[in-house]
């Protein structure tokens, strides 16, 4: 009798818990809006939406290179499996053609699709939830006026139980702060605007903040450095390793132009970001720079001193001269195999007198050489920086056919020792081998951010 009562109580508890969970997880379907795709919008609204979509870099995940813009299907690798981006063109069957604005607003706000299913946080709604209803309206207008493309995204490749979407409600409970950002009245208008752009659509933290075991951003290490498409997204908080610390001016210049003379050129997935930001007004770019540098804080006195020396060395007018590979500006002391290769193959550009973005960055200024993880510099040595189409751009030849894994490791070991005070990198040869073989997959983009393989996707397409 007693046992039976326990069982009944347990079963009841389970039912109540399950009920509560379903209540929590349940989102209703928003009915299909048959005329949504035919709606017309004011051109200014669509134009504003285009800018916002560029800020959000929507095209990067929602387009397979070579396929029509925004038609989805790109595999986004996560530690939990591959998630395929959805078609966000206004096709009624396979895209968002049947979505009312309300459904779109809810997806951005809550990470729930029109039918009421929870979305995986590969779609960064933890950021997009901060976007204002007004901006979402413009984005909606922009997306609903793109050409409709019929394209079904492949099934996600996830392990059970992750395939069970109601579980995401629990994830959201633990890690998702819904809604607009709390106002901070102690800050300037520019800072507030910058935070809105960077934290919201810009979703900087999605790459630049490390993630915890559940794939959520670790807010305790805000902007502490993360990973994207086989590249390291550098720390952009107080742990930034830039030898000359970023300031508002240099960061704004970099975001505007994709390079800065003290920091070099953007590359990897960041080229898409800097490429896309070109649609934003200067004031917004400056606002982002204001906010992000406020997170970096003031450099320590030692960093400041070192930076002052470097500035003196690299600032101002100097006679710009293209060295060529016959005359290396430095000579080898015969110290190490890496030095010999560096002097013969790298120094002519990297210690030449040619300015950014066309000359090689002097490694005294390089964040890559000082980074805790050598992945980015390995990527660039092996795959180079391919030229952009039809415009002058930074170019670096790929060295993968020239240097063996050991030779690349030798060069990098030498460079780390010469240009950085940090500890030597461990495990270089293995990392290089895995990067070369593709076991560690790296996306290679030229400086205009348009991925090279298999075809170009123009950010303007569509």
């Amino acid at each position, binding site marked *: 009798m007693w046992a039976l009562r326990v069982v009944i109580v347990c079963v009841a508890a389970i039912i109540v818990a399950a009920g509560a969970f379903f209540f929590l997880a349940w989102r209703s379907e928003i009915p299909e809006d048959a005329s949504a795709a035919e709606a017309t919008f004011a051109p200014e609204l669509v134009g504003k939406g285009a800018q916002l979509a560029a800020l959000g870099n929507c095209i990067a995940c929602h387009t397979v290179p070579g396929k029509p813009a925004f038609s989805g299907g790109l595999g986004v690798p996560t530690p939990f499996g591959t998630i395929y981006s959805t078609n966000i063109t206004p096709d009624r069957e396979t895209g968002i053609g049947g979505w009312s604005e309300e459904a779109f607003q809810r997806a951005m706000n809550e990470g729930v699709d029109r039918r009421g299913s929870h979305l995986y946080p590969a779609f960064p709604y933890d950021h997009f939830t901060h976007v204002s209803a007004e901006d979402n309206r413009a984005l909606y207008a922009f997306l609903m006026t793109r050409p409709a493309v019929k394209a079904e995204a492949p099934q996600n490749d996830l392990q059970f139980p992750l395939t069970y979407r109601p579980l995401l409600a629990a994830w959201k409970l633990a890690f998702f702060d819904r809604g607009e950002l709390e106002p901070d009245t102690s800050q300037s208008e520019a800072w507030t605007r910058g935070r809105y752009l960077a934290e919201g659509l810009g979703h900087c933290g999605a790459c630049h903040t490390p993630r915890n075991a559940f794939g959520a951003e670790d807010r305790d290490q805000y902007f502490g450095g993360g990973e994207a498409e086989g590249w390291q997204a550098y720390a952009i908080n107080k742990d930034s390793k830039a030898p000359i610390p970023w300031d508002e001016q240099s960061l704004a210049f970099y975001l505007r132009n994709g390079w800065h003379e003290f920091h070099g050129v953007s590359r990897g997935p960041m080229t898409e970001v800097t490429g896309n930001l070109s649609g934003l007004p200067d004031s917004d770019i400056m606002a982002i720079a204001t906010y992000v540098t406020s997170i970096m804080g003031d450099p320590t006195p030692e960093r400041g001193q070192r930076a002052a020396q470097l500035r003196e060395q690299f600032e101002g007018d100097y006679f710009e001269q*293209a*060295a*060529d*590979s*016959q005359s*290396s500006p430095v000579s*080898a002391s015969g110290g190490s195999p890496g030095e*010999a*290769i560096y*002097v*013969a*193959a790298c120094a*002519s*550009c990297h210690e030449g007198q040619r300015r950014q973005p066309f000359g090689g960055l002097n490694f005294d200024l390089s964040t890559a050489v000082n980074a805790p993880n050598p992945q980015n510099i390995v990527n660039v040595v092996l795959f180079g920086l*391919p*030229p952009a189409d039809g415009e002058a751009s930074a*170019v*670096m*030849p790929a*060295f993968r*056919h*020239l*240097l063996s894994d050991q*030779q690349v490791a030798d060069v990098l070991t030498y460079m780390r020792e010469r240009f950085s005070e940090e500890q030597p990198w461990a495990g270089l040869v293995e990392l290089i081998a895995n990067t070369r073989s593709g076991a560690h997959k790296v996306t290679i983009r030229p400086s205009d951010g348009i991925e*090279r*393989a*298999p*075809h170009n996707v123009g950010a303007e397409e569509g």
Partner: protein
Amino acid sequence: MSISLTVNGSPHQVDVDPATPLLYVLRDDLALNGAKYGCGLGQCGSCTVVMDGEAVLSCMVPVMLVEGREITTIEGLGTIDEPGPLQQAFIELQAAQCGYCIPGMMMSAHALLRRKPRPSDAEIREALTTNLCRCGTHMRILAAIRRAGELMQAASLPEADEGRAG
């Protein structure tokens, strides 16, 4: 320092500073003037040669790194009397204007065709991204490379036969 290298199937011994770019060794020491000097900075592609089957920019290759590796230059693709299929196709379609970029273009194409006898247009363009032509004969160059692919298939030449002359 004495360095041994294999160019177009023949072994050579040169006595140079090990940091000397391969391009200079080819032109100055081996009198193989096909590969051209354009920029000396790895940006134009006119110095392209094939090393162990892959296109590399010889102005960026310190000769110390080529010990024991197989190098093919444009001279290895054929002779004036007996042009190889790539050369034949470039002549047939008159793909050269001034011709300065052409040896580099052909070597990039050679590496591509060895790997992929029937490349798509996109693949050809991709393989030639590091080769500039200031005369602007790009469309003919593309056509010539497609043609070379056909010629190779027709003759079913062993494309993988690195370093053969003729």
